[in-house]
């Protein structure tokens, strides 16, 4: 007999995992295209949540509209981020400097700096305490399937993620811009030789990745009911872990590993006090880095 | 008894992403020999060097140095055993002085520990490193530029700096990767004399070169690689007349 509570934990874990997956995709896309880690990505998630809160407080549109507007906000933030923290360091147009260690370290530090600043600005603007989402918007109503009880939020996350993943797939493989993104991921110099506008592809990558991240933020906000400016830090790290586990440049890999992380975390709360649950992801991180440098799904070859 | 053959390469094969970069190469370098390794581009020469240095491991075969197998050894262990090398693209540290660059090589000879650092410049190890560095700088005639930043050296002098650093590791075997690249004729002749001088001091030298004049004039023996396989291994005169060698070079403009 399968313990129904256990199944519940798994479903819980899956919805957490899907959130991590949405954030992880942003990391993976950006890493694929620029070979750098975007430390500010976690803050995009937070910004998404707060943008949603602001929309609710000012305009109070229906939930679907909020999500769409947050997507737009996310894209906007992503483009701005690229221009601010990443583009200035791509001073030269040759292969050597695109991959150069100095550039990568510089953008690492600059995105780190931007993320701290963004977090603190939000702290100042909204206060570091939790903000609650108005009750009417919450997705916490339970839906009961026999003995199983999940919330509307879970369902929304599943459906929304599925939609977003499907659109992403479509965009990457059926549109021009998706093709250019894939080409630049593969070989930036080669892509340029073939006439693809690498800068545009990079900007598009940031836009898309940030849209997904921001969407994750508002979904979690509606699900949990409470948001704080610090909320992006831990999920950001966990999404990064998922990306590394998945082999760095593989989106399906990142998604699967994010789900694994989410479920592990959820199951772990059974055995450990909740304060320790972050340890699960950090342990996964260390274990993966040390024992599976290629990622769990092979092709983890870092480009030079 | 000293092993006649200092470096032995037996049936070494290396596969690289499905390509056979080095194909069952067997050869050797004897004590105090000056051996040249030539071949068209892509013949596997640099791969062979990287195999000897320990950056990559052979898929098959083994490499022995002074009678010891190098299988599984990390590059720094191999360097300490007595194989010093230079790189084709001059990997000197541009932001450090000539003196400090060479001292890197000397560090390996005497060991490097934090305690040695705490003892300061007067400590025994530091003094030995200073001495060795100064000697090597004299050897390559860079003493007067010891305080200059490596980035400010002329190209020709930088080549000698790279060699000096390798010499500071007190190698028994010195592997030079295209030492004459970018040098004019006069400089090449100077370099040739210098290398011969090294050999006369007891060092064994294996070099990769494209400048035939250098190779044929000073090497005791020449090994020819093409497409990963060894196609000739004899004294310069014989190799120059070998039809297989000549054919492999046709069409490459060498």
């Amino acid at each position, binding site marked *: 007999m399968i313990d129904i509570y256990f199944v519940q934990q798994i479903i819980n874990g899956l919805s957490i995992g899907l959130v991590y997956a949405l954030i992880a995709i942003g990391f993976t896309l950006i890493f694929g295209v620029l070979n750098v880690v975007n430390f500010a990505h976690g803050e995009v998630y937070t910004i998404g949540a707060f943008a949603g809160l602001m929309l609710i407080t000012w305009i109070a549109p229906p939930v679907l509209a909020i999500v769409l507007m947050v997507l737009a906000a996310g894209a906007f933030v992503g483009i701005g981020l690229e221009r601010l923290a990443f583009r200035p360091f791509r001073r030269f147009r040759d292969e050597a400097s695109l991959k150069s260690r100095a550039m990568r370290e510089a953008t690492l*530090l600059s995105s*780190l700096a931007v993320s701290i600043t963004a977090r603190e600005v939000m702290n100042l603007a909204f206060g570091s305490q939790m903000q609650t989402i108005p009750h009417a918007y919450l997705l916490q109503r339970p839906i009961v399937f026999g003995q199983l009880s999940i919330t509307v939020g879970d369902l929304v996350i599943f459906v929304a993620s599925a939609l977003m993943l499907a659109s992403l797939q479509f965009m990457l493989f059926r549109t021009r811009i998706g093709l250019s993104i894939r080409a630049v991921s593969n070989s930036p110099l080669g892509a340029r030789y073939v006439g693809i506008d690498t800068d545009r592809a990079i900007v598009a990558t940031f836009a898309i990745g940030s849209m997904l991240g921001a969407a994750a933020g508002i979904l979690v906000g509606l699900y949990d009911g409470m948001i704080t400016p610090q909320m992006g830090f831990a999920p950001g790290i966990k999404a990064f872990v998922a990306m590394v586990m998945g082999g760095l440049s593989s989106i399906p890999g990142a998604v699967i590993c994010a789900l694994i992380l989410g479920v592990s975390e959820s199951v772990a709360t059974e055995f450990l006090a909740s304060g320790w649950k972050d340890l699960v992801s*950090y342990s996964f991180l260390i274990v993966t880095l040390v024992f599976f440098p290629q990622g769990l799904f092979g092709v983890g070859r870092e480009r030079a | 008894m000293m092993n006649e053959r200092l470096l032995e390469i037996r049936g070494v094969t290396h596969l690289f992403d499905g390509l056979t970069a080095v194909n069952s190469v067997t050869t050797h370098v004897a004590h105090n020999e000056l051996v040249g390794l030539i071949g068209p581009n892509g013949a596997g020469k640099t791969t062979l060097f990287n195999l000897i240095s320990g950056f990559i491991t052979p898929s098959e075969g083994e490499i022995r140095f002074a009678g010891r197998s190098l299988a599984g050894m990390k590059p720094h262990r191999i*360097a300490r055993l007595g194989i010093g090398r230079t790189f084709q693209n001059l990997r000197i540290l541009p932001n450090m002085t000539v003196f400090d660059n060479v001292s890197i090589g000397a560090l390996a000879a005497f060991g490097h520990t934090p305690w040695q650092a705490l003892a300061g410049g007067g400590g025994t190890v*530091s003094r030995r490193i200073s001495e060795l560095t100064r000697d090597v700088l004299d050897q390559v005639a860079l003493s007067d530029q010891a305080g200059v930043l490596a980035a400010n050296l002329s190209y020709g002098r930088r080549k000698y700096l790279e060699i000096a650093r390798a010499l500071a590791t007190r190698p028994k075997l010195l592997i030079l990767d295209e030492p004459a690249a970018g040098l004019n004729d006069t400089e090449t002749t100077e370099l040739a004399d210098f290398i011969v001088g090294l050999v006369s001091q007891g060092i064994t030298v294996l070099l990769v070169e494209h400048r035939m004049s250098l190779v044929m004039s000073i090497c005791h023996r020449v090994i020819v690689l093409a497409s990963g396989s060894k196609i000739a291994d004899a004294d310069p005169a014989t190799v120059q007349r070998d039809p297989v060698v000549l054919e492999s070079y046709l069409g490459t403009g060498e």
Partner: protein
Amino acid sequence: MASAVSARKNVSGPTIPPAVLKAMLAIFLFIIVPVALSWIGGGYLFQVATTTLIFIILASSLNLVTGTAGLLSLGHAGFYGIGAYAAALLSTRLGLSFLATLPLAGVAAGAVGVLVALPTMRLVSIYFAVATLGIGEMIYVILLNWTGFTHGPMGIRGIPPIDLLGWQPGTPLFDYLVVAAVTALSLWAMSRLMHSYYGNALRAVREDDQCADAMGLNVVRLKIEAFGVSCFFAGIAGALFCHTAGFISPDQFRFAESINILAMVVVGGLGSLPGAVIGAALLIILPEALRSFGDFRMIAIGSIMFLSILLQPKGLLGEASALDLLRRQFGQGWSGNFATRVGWR
């Protein structure tokens, strides 16, 4: 980079001999500052000075591993925390005195550092950076949740102040002098490490580790050593902190603090010991001086860090001519001038 770059400008013009410089610094640190601060008002000012010194140790040790050896570490505060908690627990539970807790805290942090470095050192730099981030966070989670041992979020209170063999005045002035002494010693040791042939080895590892390997340097061992030493000094700083503050809690050793310290190193100039010192002093004293802007501290730090990287990647001790003298001064101490000093004296 800066101390290597210092040799770039031909070291000419009068410079003060290093011995005199050290004497001057000692006088400044042990006589001028205490006298001045006592005269102005003492108490709180001494605390600021003490904090500055502690962060000078933290920034310099981070600089040793990140600036000199090239290993970006994002978890430095975690080791600071290990040192602080080790000293706190040793003194409150076992009644050990400062003279014991100080070195033991360093050893504890250093040992954990080596333990952590052993499996992770083969990672490429960005992975290693993230691994250190993860480790820093793990340390925080453990400090927060292992309540039986660390009292969790309540922290540890009642930590005895600094005592030297029974002599325990507990005044801010006394604390300052002891901390200054430890800082001076630590800076001396780190300076020796960085400005030596060993330091050259670390720089070689930073610039081109594959080549360093081929030259016979045991790259992995060097990296682990550098990391261990830097964690040792972070632990020392932690012990100093806990004995001067009297109370510690996990929140003081989070990622934000690691970034704080990193910012000091970046602003001052990666690879430069004096740069780290100045960076630390700036980022502590400035916000204190602008107390009214207290809330904006992290924003200021983040922005300064960003601007530093963008405009002045070599940090303050890069090409700024106003600080030329400082550079020449410190640059003279090591490889700059072959004419007067061959190798190391």
